[in-house]
């Protein structure tokens, strides 16, 4: 390196806690979210939803709605059916009703739409639509779904004689059976991970704008995956793909909620085509909470085969997943229950077997990857709850039991018993850092002393390793579309640049961090690079942003396209310096002659030459595109430790400390990484403490607004202590980065729950299902029994 090399941190490269570019508009109230867009002649759409969970529609009379001045169109299922749009395909090879024709299958299902001059008029008109229903018995959990004589929810489907969607298995059943035969002890745990809703503050919405003159359809919408939506619209609406432009403007949080295709999008598009005017649909919060992608709602029956010394010999898991009325998960198609089989990836276990059954119910379609890589949250929660129970059953120390069973640093790449190949990690070191930070030994002493005085302290450990960055394309596709991603980089003649990717951020700071990757690769100051995403007419094809795949895949593509640019710039440098390419060295921002380091040219000089002084025979310009198909998933690791105090009189628990040790490989922007971890920990705390959506026996959604669906505020949310000292670069990612956006939400919940259960040690309580509401904790403490969170069965059975 010569004295003229740039200081990477100063130019905002890799490792710089660069302040975010996108903030400049958000702090001024100048963001551009879907609802902020107004188009000339725009109409407004509102949706009429079903009040019942399961009912046959006997009649729909919309005549009064048509009569209201200002109403332009009323859409019902029958009208959709004449255009073959009453049903649409889902991302999981199922179908979903756009507007109900025969039956309603969950409370809040879309029954009709009104398009009017004004949303107030459209809402009035929705109320004027008369729908008559004949109620049918609702099914609200998987046990009811498979009970003999259960009504068949999906009687619209041929060959669907029951409510089972799939039976899926992975692992080695015979080897697992043998492990259990050899076990000294079997630890068993039944758990329920309750329904939850990602609930970004911004609800879903779209503005469809079909232009009859150009035949082009432009849709502004809240989507995390604009290119997937373009493909879906092309297939569903039978429009040519090049005449569809999906623009995803600023998104007010996604967390997986804005991946699926929702009926509202489809209806606004059809309405715009019929009326030839822009049609805006903005969902209200209740609509968002009761009808759009739920997450979780899954039951576990887990068993662990143990040797007396603490070695885990085998794991057996059976899961029942409640998918709601339509199987509309957005997940890799080969895996019916997401990546649930990532469970126990961090532990060295000889044999494991997982079976899963998916069932329909009279609830909104669920199973979205809520801040996780396709059911990894459930996998890690089950794993860490089972690990805690097993250590307790053995009478072993929680930390020692984990350490003993961890995959060791020298064993990577490691093939997990359920089929993944983990890439790297320092699991024991992460645990050491976390134990030291929380003062483990000291806390155990305090816990003992407090116990003697009737105070209940608890400590919960959770670890997680998350498979992030789908694909590779061999194994990962959605409806056959391979899961790779892309980046396009254009360097202008003055050395400024624009980078576009197939991802679509929702607050992760792509506009800041993608520039930092280019800066790291090319030495162009980050402030000279603009980032653009979310417009399918300009961005290269990509699968979008969810499952923490942006940095592992699109971020890798940004690095790879930068290297293509650098390779061409090297040729330009050789031309400018009048030496051969082999005699040239690169340092940040500059090529120089190896034998004469003072002779060099900057990347900006190369850029100018690409437009003004290229060698004979060279194609002008300095632009390129890279498609990145990752060789493997990236595998971050984390240890979360939480300490709590439980009030035995009320069951209320307070968090004393939360320690997070995240090893996500190389951190592009440490400030942003820490922001992601704190956000994830808060959602973890929320799920453990208060955030769930349940249903009564009639299928009424309890949690249809923020009065009932509790989200933590600044007042409840505890403070977090983050540690970044363990760094295991990803061996196959171009800059060594791993995913991080979701880790804390994935691994966090078990730490909070384990802490409360630990506080109850000695009472015989092995489980309280989430959320650990005060009444549940109080019940467990008072009656010394486990508390299940399974929803009620019908009272009139």
């Amino acid at each position, binding site marked *: 390196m010569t004295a003229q090399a740039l200081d990477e941190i100063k130019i905002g490269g890799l490792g710089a806690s660069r*302040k*975010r570019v*996108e*903030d400049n*508009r*958000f*702090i*001024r*109230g*100048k*963001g551009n*979210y879907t*609802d*902020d867009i*107004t188009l000339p002649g725009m109409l407004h759409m509102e949706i009429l939803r079903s009040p019942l969970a399961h009912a046959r529609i006997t009649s729909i009379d919309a005549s009064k709605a048509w009569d209201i*001045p*200002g109403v332009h169109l009323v859409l019902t299922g029958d009208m959709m059916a004449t255009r073959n749009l009453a049903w649409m395909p889902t991302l999981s090879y199922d179908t979903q009703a756009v507007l109900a024709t025969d039956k309603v299958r969950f409370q809040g299902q879309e029954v009709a739409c009104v398009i*009017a*001059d*004004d949303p*107030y*008029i459209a809402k009035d008109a929705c109320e004027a639509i008369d729908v008559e229903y004949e109620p049918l018995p609702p099914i609200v959990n998987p046990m009811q779904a498979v009970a003999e004589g259960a009504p068949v929810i999906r009687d619209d489907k041929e060959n669907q004689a029951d409510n089972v969607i799939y039976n899926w298995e992975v692992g080695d059943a015979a080897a697992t059976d043998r492990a259990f035969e050899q076990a000294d002890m079997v630890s068993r745990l039944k758990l329920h991970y309750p329904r939850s809703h990602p*609930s*970004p*503050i*911004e*609800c879903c919405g779209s503005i469809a704008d079909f232009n009859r003159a150009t035949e082009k359809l432009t849709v502004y919408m809240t989507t995390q995956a604009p290119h997937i939506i373009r493909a879906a619209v092309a297939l569903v609406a039978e429009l040519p793909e090049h005449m569809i432009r999906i623009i995803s403007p*600023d*998104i*007010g*949080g*996604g*967390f997986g909620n804005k991946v699926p295709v929702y009926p509202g999008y489809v209806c606004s598009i059809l309405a715009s085509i019929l009326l030839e005017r822009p049609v805006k649909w903005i969902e*209200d*919060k*209740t609509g968002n909470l009761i009808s759009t992608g739920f997450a979780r709602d899954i039951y576990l029956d887990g068993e662990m085969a143990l040797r007396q010394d603490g070695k885990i010999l085998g794991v057996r898991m059976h899961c029942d997943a409640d998918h709601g009325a339509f199987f509309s998960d957005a997940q890799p198609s080969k895996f019916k229950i997401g990546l649930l089989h990532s469970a126990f990836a961090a532990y060295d276990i000889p044999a494991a077997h997982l079976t899963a059954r998916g069932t329909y119910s009279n609830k909104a379609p669920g199973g979205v990857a809520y801040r996780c890589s396709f059911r990894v949250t459930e996998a890690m929660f089950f794993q860490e709850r089972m690990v805690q129970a097993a250590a307790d059953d053995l009478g072993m120390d929680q930390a020692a039991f984990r350490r003993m069973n961890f995959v060791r640093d020298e064993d990577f790449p490691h093939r997990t018993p359920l089929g993944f190949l983990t890439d790297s990690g320092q699991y024991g070191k992460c645990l050491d850092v976390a134990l030291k930070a929380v003062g483990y030994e000291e806390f155990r002493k305090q816990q003992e002393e407090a116990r003697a005085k009737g105070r209940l302290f608890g400590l919960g450990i959770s670890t997680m390793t998350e498979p992030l960055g789908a694909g590779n394309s061999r194994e990962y596709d959605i409806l056959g579309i391979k899961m790779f991603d892309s980046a396009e980089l254009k360097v202008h003649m003055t050395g400024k640049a624009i980078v576009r990717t197939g991802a679509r951020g*929702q*607050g*992760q*700071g792509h506009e800041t961090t993608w520039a930092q990757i280019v800066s790291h690769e090319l030495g162009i100051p980050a402030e000279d690079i603009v980032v653009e995403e979310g417009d399918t007419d300009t961005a290269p094809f990509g699968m979008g942003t969810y499952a923490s795949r942006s940095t592992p895949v699109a971020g890798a593509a940004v690095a790879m396209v930068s290297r293509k640019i650098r390779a061409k710039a090297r040729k330009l440098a050789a031309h400018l310096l009048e030496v051969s390419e082999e005699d040239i060295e690169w340092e940040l921002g500059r090529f120089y002659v190896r034998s004469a380091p003072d002779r060099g040219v900057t990347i900006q000089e190369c850029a100018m030459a690409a437009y003004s002084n290229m060698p004979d025979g060279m194609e002008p310009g300095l632009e390129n595109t890279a498609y990145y198909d990752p060789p493997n998933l990236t595998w971050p690791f984390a240890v979360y430790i939480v300490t709590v105090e439980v009030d035995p009189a009320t069951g209320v628990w307070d968090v004393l400390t939360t320690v997070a040790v995240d090893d996500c490989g190389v951190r592009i922007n440490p*400030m*942003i990484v*820490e*922001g992601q971890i*704190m*956000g*994830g*920990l*808060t*959602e973890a705390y929320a799920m453990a403490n208060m955030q769930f959506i349940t249903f009564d026996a009639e299928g009424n959604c309890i949690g249809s*607004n*923020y*009065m009932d669906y509790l*989200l933590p*505020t*600044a*007042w409840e*949310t505890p*403070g*977090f202590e983050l540690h970044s000292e363990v760094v295991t670069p990803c061996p196959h990612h171009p800059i060594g980065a791993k995913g991080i956006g979701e880790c804390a939400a994935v691994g966090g919940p078990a730490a909070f729950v384990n802490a409360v259960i630990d506080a109850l040690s000695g009472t015989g309580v092995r489980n309280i299902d989430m959320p650990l509401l005060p009444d549940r904790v109080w019940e467990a403490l008072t009656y010394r029994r486990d508390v299940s969170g399974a929803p009620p069965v019908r009272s009139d059975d």
Partner: protein
Amino acid sequence: MTVVYDNIGDAAEEGAVPVRRITFTVNGRKKVAEVEPRLLLSHLIRRGLGLTGTHMGCDTTNCGACTVLMKGAGEVGGGRPVKSCTMLAVQVDGREITTVEGLATASELHPLQEGFKEEHGLQCGFCTPGMMMAAKALLDENPDPTEEEVRWALSGNLCRCTGYQNIVKSVLWAAAKLRAEAAG
């Protein structure tokens, strides 16, 4: 007269929709509008005035994304924080409101805006305007709040991205800067 919210549709029967004229001040400018009595303040702000920095999240006074400051005639100070999704537009008649667009001057950001950027107090940005308005009301009253006071003052505003820790830091950053400015 400026009609800031006009709802041009097919002609209704004479007198079918009652309309009320209101006068108010927004970000220091006087406005007149004719509005339906049921029109929400948040819709007047967003659609009528085109001030889309005030966001609508929950429609039920829970999330606080629509928080603006409101001041009655004769009241002193910067105004009280109100959630504009559960106020009617007619309620601002004769009153003064400040939205996020009124925080900065033409050349200078408000210290709260700087603080949110400095301390990474936002991610998706959707709750941010409401957070800053609630925080402004706090700092107008209490220039030197504790962390606990900040958390309490913001407890009517939900954020799903940040986990609040950096939001609290942002507000404390702004408080320190405002105090330093006041000390001259």
